[in-house]
């Protein structure tokens, strides 16, 4: 495996810049910090726990909001804990759901232990085998424009495994209060009067 060259912050920034109506679920750890670094907004729901569930939160949201694009941004470790959710998503085939896994082949928050992708697990191949409409691995900066266009426009479910460098980026933390994160998301999406719906 050649050394990864992509910077995770730049990848996420390019996805979330001018995001318009995009709804985002961020998996716990670095992926959530990356999304917050691109701008803390109500329509990003960052997870601080529930490891392995980011894609399923994205599926529930995508099914509830079929007219909005939903993007799940998560890490390789978080994705590996919920591999079955790729089969579950493929069973429903939501056309508005995209998943981007920032794959540094390490558990970044716990001491940089190797994840299974370091030992050869090909997450994009898993997603494709589960039945995703499209699943690819992104290795180079030249692919980022096409990645962005696909995430914002291609019919889902689509899956991208983006190989990123192992460098630790500065911590940019989202709010930690889960009830607050939930309320602000629903207010921004559904309007204040519908938050108890």
């Amino acid at each position, binding site marked *: 495996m050649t050394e990864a060259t992509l910077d995770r912050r730049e990848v996420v920034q390019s996805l979330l810049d001018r995001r318009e109506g995009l*709804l985002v*679920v961020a998996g716990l750890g670095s992926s959530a910090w990356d999304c917050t670094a691109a701008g803390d907004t109500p329509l990003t*729901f960052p*997870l*601080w*726990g*529930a*490891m*392995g*569930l*980011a*894609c*399923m*939160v*994205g*599926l*529930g*949201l*995508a*099914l*509830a*909001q079929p007219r909005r694009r939903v993007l799940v941004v998560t890490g390789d470790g978080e994705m590996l804990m*919920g591999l*079955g*959710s790729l*089969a*579950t998503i493929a*069973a*429903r085939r939501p056309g508005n759901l995209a998943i981007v896994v920032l794959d540094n082949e390490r558990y970044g928050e716990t001491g940089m232990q190797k994840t299974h992708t370091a030992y050869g697990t090909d997450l994009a191949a898993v997603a494709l085998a589960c039945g995703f409409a499209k699943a690819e691995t992104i290795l180079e900066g030249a692919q980022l424009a096409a990645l962005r266009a696909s995430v914002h426009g291609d019919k889902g479910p689509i899956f991208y495994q983006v190989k990123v460098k192992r460098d630790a980026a500065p911590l940019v933390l989202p709010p930690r209060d*889960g*009830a607050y*994160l*939930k309320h602000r*998301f*629903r207010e921004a*999406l*559904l309007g204040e009067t*519908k938050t*108890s*719906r």
Partner: protein
Amino acid sequence: MEPDAPLDWPSAIHRALKSHRVSQVSYVPDAGHKRLIELCHADKDMVVVPLTTEEEGIGLAAGAWLGGERAVLLMQSSGVGNCVNALTLVSNCVFPLLMIVTMRGERGEFNPWQIPMGEGTPDALRLGGVRTVRLERAEDAFATVTAAAKLAFESCGAVAVLIAQRLIGAKSFEEKP
């Protein structure tokens, strides 16, 4: 009242879910949930999501609520043990959660491997912050599930309806080799 209607408890549960506008139904199957799952699949107002493992349904329900929809999660009691860490999503964010759990390891159980998790189910749910309510009699199905749905969606509570093995019947299990 029609004599047979109150005994069709899966249909009563389905009606209770509809009366609370539940539109996403996820499940890991159980023989006891067979008819309810079929009713939900046949319902054009419900999106049905088969899961590979039960905790997926906790994430799905949270996402549904973020998007303005209501979800229910169906499973058998052996699946409750898979949900423990996922339930922290519910307690931290105060998400509504409605689970309907068919009990194994109770009356007439033929499979000893079902018994430990069946016996541990109420405590496991309690530790995860989920209230439990028992459903023992077919005629209570609509009222029990309606009340549980109200607690979940109007009070943002986490609640599991535990359907007694006595109600499901152990016959079909006993007939298996």
